[in-house]
Protein backbone atom coordinates (compact mmCIF):
# COMPACT_ATOMS: atom_id res chain seq x y z
CA UNK A 1 0.00 0.00 0.00
CA UNK A 2 1.68 3.17 -1.20
CA UNK A 3 1.55 6.46 0.71
CA UNK A 4 -0.33 8.15 -2.13
CA UNK A 5 -2.99 5.41 -2.11
CA UNK A 6 -3.51 5.86 1.64
CA UNK A 7 -3.68 9.64 1.15
CA UNK A 8 -6.43 9.35 -1.46
CA UNK A 9 -8.34 6.70 0.54
CA UNK A 10 -8.28 9.05 3.53
CA UNK A 11 -9.38 11.98 1.38
CA UNK A 12 -12.31 10.03 -0.10
CA UNK A 13 -13.42 8.87 3.35
CA UNK A 14 -13.01 12.37 4.84
CA UNK A 15 -15.07 14.03 2.09
CA UNK A 16 -17.79 11.39 2.42
CA UNK A 17 -17.79 11.74 6.22
CA UNK A 18 -17.82 15.57 6.22
CA UNK A 19 -20.73 15.56 3.76
CA UNK A 20 -22.67 12.98 5.75
CA UNK A 21 -22.13 14.80 9.06
CA UNK A 22 -23.33 17.99 7.38
CA UNK A 23 -26.43 16.24 6.02
CA UNK A 24 -27.44 14.89 9.43
CA UNK A 25 -26.58 18.03 11.45
CA UNK A 26 -27.89 20.90 9.33
CA UNK A 27 -31.56 21.72 9.15
CA UNK A 28 -31.22 24.10 6.23
CA UNK A 29 -32.08 22.19 3.02
CA UNK A 30 -29.48 24.13 1.01
CA UNK A 31 -26.75 23.09 3.46
CA UNK A 32 -27.95 19.50 3.21
CA UNK A 33 -27.81 19.69 -0.58
CA UNK A 34 -24.21 20.98 -0.32
CA UNK A 35 -23.49 18.05 2.02
CA UNK A 36 -24.87 15.53 -0.47
CA UNK A 37 -22.66 17.07 -3.17
CA UNK A 38 -19.56 16.76 -0.95
CA UNK A 39 -20.50 13.13 -0.20
CA UNK A 40 -20.63 12.67 -3.96
CA UNK A 41 -17.10 14.11 -4.32
CA UNK A 42 -15.94 11.54 -1.75
CA UNK A 43 -17.59 8.68 -3.61
CA UNK A 44 -16.12 9.82 -6.93
CA UNK A 45 -12.65 10.10 -5.38
CA UNK A 46 -13.08 6.55 -4.04
CA UNK A 47 -14.00 5.35 -7.55
CA UNK A 48 -10.94 7.06 -9.05
CA UNK A 49 -8.75 5.85 -6.18
CA UNK A 50 -5.53 4.41 -7.63
CA UNK A 51 -4.97 1.78 -4.95
CA UNK A 52 -6.42 -1.50 -6.10
CA UNK A 53 -5.65 -1.41 -9.84
CA UNK A 54 -2.32 -2.83 -10.90
CA UNK A 55 -0.53 -2.62 -14.21
CA UNK A 56 -1.22 -0.53 -17.27
CA UNK A 57 -2.26 2.91 -16.11
CA UNK A 58 -5.60 4.25 -14.85
CA UNK A 59 -8.77 2.26 -15.55
CA UNK A 60 -11.09 4.13 -17.97
CA UNK A 61 -14.26 2.28 -16.86
CA UNK A 62 -14.62 3.97 -13.45
CA UNK A 63 -13.61 7.25 -15.12
CA UNK A 64 -16.60 7.00 -17.45
CA UNK A 65 -18.77 6.01 -14.49
CA UNK A 66 -17.72 9.13 -12.57
CA UNK A 67 -18.36 11.44 -15.56
CA UNK A 68 -21.87 9.99 -15.81
CA UNK A 69 -22.27 10.45 -12.07
CA UNK A 70 -21.24 14.12 -12.27
CA UNK A 71 -24.00 14.89 -14.79
CA UNK A 72 -26.60 13.03 -12.72
CA UNK A 73 -25.42 14.94 -9.62
CA UNK A 74 -25.84 18.35 -11.27
CA UNK A 75 -29.32 17.39 -12.54
CA UNK A 76 -30.27 16.27 -9.03
CA UNK A 77 -28.88 19.47 -7.51
CA UNK A 78 -30.86 21.61 -9.96
CA UNK A 79 -34.04 19.70 -9.15
CA UNK A 80 -33.33 19.98 -5.43
CA UNK A 81 -32.82 23.75 -5.65
CA UNK A 82 -36.11 24.11 -7.58
CA UNK A 83 -37.90 22.15 -4.86
CA UNK A 84 -36.30 24.28 -2.13
CA UNK A 85 -37.43 27.46 -3.88
CA UNK A 86 -40.92 26.06 -4.42
CA UNK A 87 -41.20 25.06 -0.80
CA UNK A 88 -40.07 28.56 0.17
CA UNK A 89 -38.42 27.13 3.25
CA UNK A 90 -37.71 29.79 5.86
CA UNK A 91 -39.28 32.39 3.52
CA UNK A 92 -35.85 33.19 2.08
CA UNK A 93 -35.56 29.90 0.26
CA UNK A 94 -32.33 28.99 2.00
Amino acid at each position, binding site marked *: MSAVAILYAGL*AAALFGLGL*ISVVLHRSPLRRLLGINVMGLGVFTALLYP*GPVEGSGPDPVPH*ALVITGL*VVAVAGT*ALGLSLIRRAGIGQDGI
Partner: protein
Amino acid sequence: MVLGALAAAAALFVGLVLLQPVPGLTPEVERHIAETGVSNPVTAVLLDYRAYDTLMELLIVVLALLAAEPLAPRIAARAPLAGPVVVGGIGALAPALAVLGGYVLWIGATAPGGALQAAALWAAALILLETVGRGLVPRATNHAAGLSAIGVAVFFGAGLGAVAFTGMPLDWPAKHAGAIILGIEVAAAAALALGLAALFRAGTAAP
Protein backbone atom coordinates in the same frame (compact mmCIF):
# COMPACT_ATOMS: atom_id res chain seq x y z
CA MET B 1 -25.97 10.47 14.22
CA VAL B 2 -22.58 12.15 13.98
CA LEU B 3 -20.98 9.01 15.38
CA GLY B 4 -22.80 6.97 12.75
CA ALA B 5 -21.49 9.26 10.01
CA LEU B 6 -17.96 9.00 11.41
CA ALA B 7 -18.29 5.20 11.53
CA ALA B 8 -19.45 5.14 7.89
CA ALA B 9 -16.47 7.27 6.83
CA ALA B 10 -14.06 5.08 8.83
CA ALA B 11 -15.55 1.96 7.24
CA LEU B 12 -15.07 3.47 3.78
CA PHE B 13 -11.41 4.23 4.57
CA VAL B 14 -10.70 0.76 5.94
CA GLY B 15 -12.52 -0.86 3.02
CA LEU B 16 -10.50 1.15 0.47
CA VAL B 17 -7.18 0.42 2.16
CA LEU B 18 -7.93 -3.30 2.44
CA LEU B 19 -8.84 -3.65 -1.26
CA GLN B 20 -6.54 -6.14 -2.93
CA PRO B 21 -4.84 -5.18 -6.20
CA VAL B 22 -6.83 -6.34 -9.25
CA PRO B 23 -5.95 -6.15 -12.94
CA GLY B 24 -8.82 -3.73 -13.64
CA LEU B 25 -10.61 -3.50 -16.97
CA THR B 26 -7.88 -1.59 -18.82
CA PRO B 27 -6.64 -4.66 -20.78
CA GLU B 28 -10.20 -5.50 -21.88
CA VAL B 29 -10.84 -1.91 -22.95
CA GLU B 30 -7.59 -1.83 -24.93
CA ARG B 31 -8.13 -5.21 -26.58
CA HIS B 32 -11.27 -4.07 -28.41
CA ILE B 33 -10.57 -0.36 -28.80
CA ALA B 34 -10.00 -0.65 -32.56
CA GLU B 35 -13.63 -1.76 -32.96
CA THR B 36 -14.95 1.41 -31.33
CA GLY B 37 -13.55 3.87 -33.88
CA VAL B 38 -12.17 6.16 -31.15
CA SER B 39 -8.82 6.04 -29.41
CA ASN B 40 -9.71 7.82 -26.14
CA PRO B 41 -10.58 4.89 -23.84
CA VAL B 42 -12.98 6.98 -21.74
CA THR B 43 -14.99 7.98 -24.82
CA ALA B 44 -14.95 4.34 -25.94
CA VAL B 45 -16.45 3.30 -22.60
CA LEU B 46 -19.01 6.13 -22.55
CA LEU B 47 -20.29 5.80 -26.12
CA ASP B 48 -19.60 2.18 -26.99
CA TYR B 49 -18.93 -0.38 -24.23
CA ARG B 50 -21.26 1.30 -21.74
CA ALA B 51 -23.38 3.44 -24.11
CA TYR B 52 -26.34 2.10 -22.16
CA ASP B 53 -25.23 4.09 -19.09
CA THR B 54 -24.88 7.30 -21.08
CA LEU B 55 -28.34 6.82 -22.62
CA MET B 56 -29.87 6.35 -19.16
CA GLU B 57 -27.99 9.41 -17.88
CA LEU B 58 -29.58 11.55 -20.64
CA LEU B 59 -32.98 10.15 -19.66
CA ILE B 60 -32.32 11.16 -16.05
CA VAL B 61 -31.61 14.75 -17.09
CA VAL B 62 -34.82 14.89 -19.15
CA LEU B 63 -36.80 13.39 -16.24
CA ALA B 64 -35.26 15.88 -13.78
CA LEU B 65 -36.29 18.68 -16.16
CA LEU B 66 -39.82 17.29 -16.47
CA ALA B 67 -40.00 17.21 -12.67
CA ALA B 68 -38.55 20.70 -12.12
CA GLU B 69 -40.28 22.69 -14.87
CA PRO B 70 -43.90 22.47 -13.72
CA LEU B 71 -43.01 23.67 -10.19
CA ALA B 72 -44.94 26.91 -10.27
CA PRO B 73 -42.51 29.78 -9.66
CA ARG B 74 -42.71 31.89 -6.53
CA ILE B 75 -40.00 34.20 -7.75
CA ALA B 76 -39.79 36.09 -11.02
CA ALA B 77 -36.52 35.85 -12.88
CA ARG B 78 -34.33 38.94 -12.93
CA ALA B 79 -34.73 41.46 -15.69
CA PRO B 80 -32.15 40.83 -18.42
CA LEU B 81 -28.81 42.56 -17.97
CA ALA B 82 -28.45 45.65 -20.12
CA GLY B 83 -25.57 47.90 -21.20
CA PRO B 84 -23.27 47.72 -24.18
CA VAL B 85 -20.33 46.12 -22.37
CA VAL B 86 -22.18 43.17 -20.83
CA VAL B 87 -24.43 42.58 -23.86
CA GLY B 88 -21.54 42.90 -26.32
CA GLY B 89 -19.23 40.83 -24.14
CA ILE B 90 -21.70 37.99 -23.77
CA GLY B 91 -22.59 38.30 -27.46
CA ALA B 92 -18.91 37.57 -28.20
CA LEU B 93 -18.32 35.04 -25.40
CA ALA B 94 -21.31 32.77 -26.11
CA PRO B 95 -20.30 31.88 -29.70
CA ALA B 96 -16.71 31.38 -28.54
CA LEU B 97 -17.95 28.94 -25.88
CA ALA B 98 -20.04 27.16 -28.52
CA VAL B 99 -16.96 26.74 -30.75
CA LEU B 100 -14.85 25.61 -27.77
CA GLY B 101 -17.55 23.04 -26.94
CA GLY B 102 -17.46 21.77 -30.51
CA TYR B 103 -13.69 21.43 -30.27
CA VAL B 104 -13.89 19.58 -26.95
CA LEU B 105 -16.48 17.22 -28.48
CA TRP B 106 -14.35 16.57 -31.57
CA ILE B 107 -11.08 16.08 -29.70
CA GLY B 108 -12.84 13.67 -27.29
CA ALA B 109 -12.35 10.87 -29.84
CA THR B 110 -8.60 10.91 -29.38
CA ALA B 111 -7.78 12.98 -26.26
CA PRO B 112 -9.41 14.06 -22.99
CA GLY B 113 -12.75 15.68 -23.80
CA GLY B 114 -16.06 14.45 -25.12
CA ALA B 115 -19.78 15.01 -25.37
CA LEU B 116 -20.54 15.63 -21.70
CA GLN B 117 -17.84 18.26 -21.24
CA ALA B 118 -18.93 19.88 -24.52
CA ALA B 119 -22.53 19.88 -23.31
CA ALA B 120 -21.55 21.77 -20.17
CA LEU B 121 -19.79 24.44 -22.27
CA TRP B 122 -22.80 24.75 -24.59
CA ALA B 123 -25.11 24.96 -21.57
CA ALA B 124 -22.92 27.77 -20.23
CA ALA B 125 -23.30 29.63 -23.55
CA LEU B 126 -27.10 29.18 -23.43
CA ILE B 127 -27.24 30.40 -19.82
CA LEU B 128 -25.12 33.47 -20.63
CA LEU B 129 -27.42 34.36 -23.54
CA GLU B 130 -30.37 33.96 -21.17
CA THR B 131 -28.94 36.59 -18.80
CA VAL B 132 -29.00 39.27 -21.52
CA GLY B 133 -32.50 38.34 -22.69
CA ARG B 134 -31.37 36.58 -25.86
CA GLY B 135 -32.08 33.07 -24.62
CA LEU B 136 -32.50 30.26 -27.14
CA VAL B 137 -34.11 27.78 -24.72
CA PRO B 138 -37.89 27.69 -25.33
CA ARG B 139 -39.89 29.09 -22.42
CA ALA B 140 -43.15 27.16 -22.77
CA THR B 141 -43.52 24.34 -20.24
CA ASN B 142 -42.11 21.02 -21.45
CA HIS B 143 -40.85 22.43 -24.78
CA ALA B 144 -37.19 22.30 -23.70
CA ALA B 145 -37.72 18.80 -22.28
CA GLY B 146 -39.37 17.79 -25.56
CA LEU B 147 -36.43 19.08 -27.61
CA SER B 148 -34.01 17.31 -25.24
CA ALA B 149 -36.01 14.13 -25.67
CA ILE B 150 -35.46 14.33 -29.45
CA GLY B 151 -31.71 14.05 -28.85
CA VAL B 152 -32.27 11.10 -26.53
CA ALA B 153 -34.55 9.52 -29.16
CA VAL B 154 -31.79 9.85 -31.81
CA PHE B 155 -29.41 8.00 -29.45
CA PHE B 156 -32.07 5.39 -28.65
CA GLY B 157 -33.02 4.94 -32.31
CA ALA B 158 -29.40 4.48 -33.34
CA GLY B 159 -28.95 1.94 -30.56
CA LEU B 160 -31.99 0.03 -31.73
CA GLY B 161 -30.95 0.31 -35.39
CA ALA B 162 -27.61 -1.29 -34.53
CA VAL B 163 -29.47 -4.58 -34.00
CA ALA B 164 -29.91 -4.85 -37.77
CA PHE B 165 -26.13 -4.75 -38.31
CA THR B 166 -24.57 -6.42 -35.29
CA GLY B 167 -27.48 -8.27 -33.69
CA MET B 168 -26.98 -6.31 -30.46
CA PRO B 169 -28.58 -3.02 -29.39
CA LEU B 170 -26.04 -0.19 -28.87
CA ASP B 171 -23.29 -2.30 -30.45
CA TRP B 172 -22.00 -0.24 -33.37
CA PRO B 173 -20.70 -1.93 -36.56
CA ALA B 174 -16.91 -1.60 -36.26
CA LYS B 175 -16.44 -0.15 -39.75
CA HIS B 176 -18.53 2.97 -39.11
CA ALA B 177 -18.31 3.11 -35.31
CA GLY B 178 -16.28 6.35 -35.27
CA ALA B 179 -18.78 8.27 -37.41
CA ILE B 180 -21.78 6.83 -35.54
CA ILE B 181 -20.27 7.80 -32.19
CA LEU B 182 -19.56 11.36 -33.42
CA GLY B 183 -23.17 11.74 -34.60
CA ILE B 184 -24.57 10.40 -31.35
CA GLU B 185 -22.25 12.64 -29.35
CA VAL B 186 -23.55 15.72 -31.18
CA ALA B 187 -27.19 14.71 -30.52
CA ALA B 188 -26.46 13.77 -26.90
CA ALA B 189 -24.46 16.93 -26.20
CA ALA B 190 -27.17 19.16 -27.72
CA ALA B 191 -29.87 17.40 -25.67
CA LEU B 192 -27.78 17.61 -22.52
CA ALA B 193 -26.87 21.28 -23.03
CA LEU B 194 -30.50 22.19 -23.57
CA GLY B 195 -31.60 20.09 -20.60
CA LEU B 196 -28.99 21.58 -18.25
CA ALA B 197 -29.70 25.17 -19.38
CA ALA B 198 -33.45 24.63 -18.91
CA LEU B 199 -32.82 23.05 -15.49
CA PHE B 200 -30.80 26.13 -14.57
CA ARG B 201 -33.78 28.32 -15.37
CA ALA B 202 -36.51 26.03 -14.02
CA GLY B 203 -38.78 27.38 -11.34
CA THR B 204 -38.71 31.04 -12.31
CA ALA B 205 -41.27 32.96 -14.33
CA ALA B 206 -40.37 34.89 -17.46
CA PRO B 207 -38.97 38.32 -16.58
